[in-house]
C-alpha cells in the first residue's frame, strides 16, 4: 500500500476501523474510501457511530484498531499540523465565543493557518457580510452554523468535514448551508459529511455510506441505493389483523415487504397492479385496512428496508 500514491485520488480512507467506549462499540470494523473531489455522506440514525468515525478521521480521537489515512497521511506519523493546514472542520457541537464578533472569530481562526482565504472574503462566502460586527451570541442558529462553516473554510481546505451541519435548522437556513457547501464543491473541494436527513444526503452527496450500529450496511450513489430497493413506490399500510409476509410479497407488482412499527412497508414496482391485489389480500385475510400511504422511494426507505427502523426512530 502506498499512501502517497493513494493520496492523489483518495482523499480519505479507513480500513477495519474500531472504536470501543466502556460498554459500547461505537465503530465496529468500518471500511470507507472517499475520493478526491466528491461529497461523501455518512447517513445513519443518532448513535450510529458517524461522529466517532469522523472525529477519528479528523485526528481528534484515536481509533482502537484499523488504518486511517487522510490526504495520503496517517495521524501521528509525520507533523500532524501540516495535515491540519489542509483540512477544514466543523464539529457537531461547537459553541463559538458569544462575546466575540463574526469578524473577530474568523480572524482568530484565520491566524492559525499559514495559508488560506482573506477574512472578509470568507465572511462574504457564507453571506454574513451584514453581520460582520455582530456578536456571535446575537446570531440566529443558521447564522451561527454559517459562521462555523466560515471557520472551516478559512484555511481554503482540500478536504472539509461537516458533522451534521444542518441539524436543528429551519428549511431556509438549511438551504443556505447547502449553497455554501455546493460553492465549495464547485471549487474542487472534497467533503465528508454526516447527516441523518435523507434530503440532505440526496441533495449534497455523490456517494453515501449508510451506517448503523457502527457498521456500514450499504454504499453507493443516492440513486443506486434507492434503485437497490427494486421499486419506484413505497406503500405503507396498517391493518387490523394478521397478514402473511410471504403472500404479500408474492402479489403482482410487489418487489418485497418488510414489517415496520406494527405496520407493513411494501415495495412496489407497479402501483396499478399492486394496489388492488394488496387490498384484495387484506379482504381475504379478514384484516380491515386502517391506514394506507404511498410515496416515491427514498433513502429513508433504503434504511428502513435494511434495518426495520426509521432514521429518526429512537
Amino acid at each position, binding site marked *: 500500500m502506498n499512501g502517497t500514491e493513494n493520496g492523489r485520488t483518495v482523499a480519505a480512507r479507513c480500513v477495519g476501523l474500531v472504536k470501543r467506549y466502556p460498554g459500547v462499540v461505537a465503530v465496529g470494523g468500518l471500511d470507507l474510501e472517499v475520493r478526491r473531489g466528491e461529497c461523501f455522506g455518512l447517513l445513519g440514525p443518532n448513535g450510529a457511530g458517524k461522529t466517532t468515525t469522523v472525529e477519528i478521521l479528523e485526528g481528534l480521537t484515536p481509533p482502537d484498531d484499523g488504518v486511517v489515512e487522510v490526504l495520503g497521511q496517517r495521524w501521528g506519523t509525520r507533523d500532524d499540523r501540516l495535515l491540519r493546514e489542509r483540512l477544514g472542520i466543523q464539529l457537531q*457541537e461547537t459553541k463559538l465565543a458569544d462575546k466575540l464578533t463574526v469578524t473577530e472569530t474568523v480572524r482568530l481562526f484565520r*491566524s492559525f493557518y499559514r495559508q*488560506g482565504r482573506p477574512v472578509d472574503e470568507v465572511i462574504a462566502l457564507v453571506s454574513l457580510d451584514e453581520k460582520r460586527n455582530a456578536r456571535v451570541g446575537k446570531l440566529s442558529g443558521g447564522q451561527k452554523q454559517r459562521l462555523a462553516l466560515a471557520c472551516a473554510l478559512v484555511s481554503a481546505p482540500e478536504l472539509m468535514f461537516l458533522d451534521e451541519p444542518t441539524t436543528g435548522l429551519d428549511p431556509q437556513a438549511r438551504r443556505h448551508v447547502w449553497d455554501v457547501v455546493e460553492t465549495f464543491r464547485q471549487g474542487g473541494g472534497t467533503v465528508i459529511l454526516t447527516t441523518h436527513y435523507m434530503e440532505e444526503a440526496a441533495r449534497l452527496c455523490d456517494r453515501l455510506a449508510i451506517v448503523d450500529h457502527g457498521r456500514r450496511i450499504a454504499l453507493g450513489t443516492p440513486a443506486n441505493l434507492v434503485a437497490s430497493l427494486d421499486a419506484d413506490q413505497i406503500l405503507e399500510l396498517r391493518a387490523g389483523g394478521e397478514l402473511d409476509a410471504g403472500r404479500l410479497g408474492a402479489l403482482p407488482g410487489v418487489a418485497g415487504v418488510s414489517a415496520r412499527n406494527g405496520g407493513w412497508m411494501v415495495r412496489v414496482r407497479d402501483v396499478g397492479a399492486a394496489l388492488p391485489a394488496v387490498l384484495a389480500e387484506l379482504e381475504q385475510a379478514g384484516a380491515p385496512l386502517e391506514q394506507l400511504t404511498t410515496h416515491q422511494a427514498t433513502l429513508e426507505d433504503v434504511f428502513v428496508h435494511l434495518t426495520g427502523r426509521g432514521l429518526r426512530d429512537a
Partner: protein
Amino acid sequence: MPEPTASRGGALHPLAELTRVRVLEFLREPEALFWVFGFPVLLALALGIAFRDPGAASYRVGVVDPAIADRLAGADDLNVTAMERGAALEALGRGRLDLVVEAVPGDAAPPEFVFRFDPTRPEGRAARLAVDDALQRAYGRQDLLEHRDQPVADRGSRYIDFLIPGLIGLNLMGSGMWGIGFSIVVARTRGLLKRFAATPMRRPHYLVSYALSRLLFLVLEVAAIVGFGWLIFGVSVRGPLLAVLAIAIVGGLSFAALGLLVAARSRTIEAVSGWMNLLQLPMWLLSGSFFSYERFPEAFWPAIRLLPLTAVNDALRAVFRGEALIADSLPELIVLAGWGLVSFAIALRRFRWH
C-alpha cells in the same frame, strides 16, 4: 475561487490574535471587571476605615461612683462616664467600655478599688494602666523619674500599610486563578477547545495567550490598588515602583500557571471551583494578607513561606518598606518562578482538549 493567500489574510500572528480575543472577551464581561478592579478597592476602603488609626488613644472608662469620676477628671487620655453598676457592666460586656472602676464598700481611706476589664483585649490592659496611674496621682503619688513624650507618626506601620500589599497579592491570586480557570472550563464545555485542537494552532500558544492577557490586566490592577492606597490612605511605596511591577508580573504569571493547571482537566465549572477553593483557602488564611503569618507557630513559617501568595506578599511588603528587590526578595522570586514553571509544564502535558 481565489487562490489561497499567504500573510494570514488580515489576521495577526496566532499568539497575538489569541491574546487579543482574550482581552476583548474580558472587557466585554462587566462582572469580571468589577471583581478584578472594583472589589479590591472596596475591600481596601472598608478595611482601611475599620482599622484606621484612632488618633490619640482614649480609653472609655465607666465609673460607678461620681466621686471617682472627679478624681479621674485630670487624665486627658481617659473618657470617663459615671453610670449605674448594672449598665456599666453590660457596656463592658458589649465592648462599649474598656474598663469599669468601682470602689469596695467600706470605710477604708483611700478606698480600695476594683478594676473590671477584659485582659485579652489590649485596650482593656492599657486602660487599666492609665486608670491606675491617674488614680495613684490623684491620691498623691509622687513620680521618681522625669520623662518627656515624643510621639512618632510612622506612616509605614499602620494596618493599612500592611494591608495594601496583601490585597495586591490576593488580587493577583484571585484574578489569575479564577479568571483563567473559569474561561478555560467554559471553553471546554462549549466544545471550543476541541475545535481549536482541530486546527494547526500550536497548543502552547493557547495557554500562553492566557498568561499574556493576564500581564496586561495585572499592570492595571496593581496600579489601581497602589494608586488608591496612596490617594486615600497615603500608603506610599518606598522602594521603586518598577520592583512592585516586577513582583506583580512574576507572581501574576505564577498564579496564571496555577489557574491553567487547575483547569487542565476539569470538565465542569463545579469541579474547577472546588479545586480553586481547595488551593486558595489555605493561602487566604496562612499567607499573611490580612494578618501576619508570624502569629502562627514558628515551626510552620518555612512551609508557609513556600506558598506562592506568601512569597508575593512578603516580596511586595519588602518593596513597600523600601528594601531592595533582588537582594532581599530573591528567595520569594525563586519560589514564585518555581510554582509558575512547574504548573505550566504539568498543565501543558495534562491539558484535556476535549
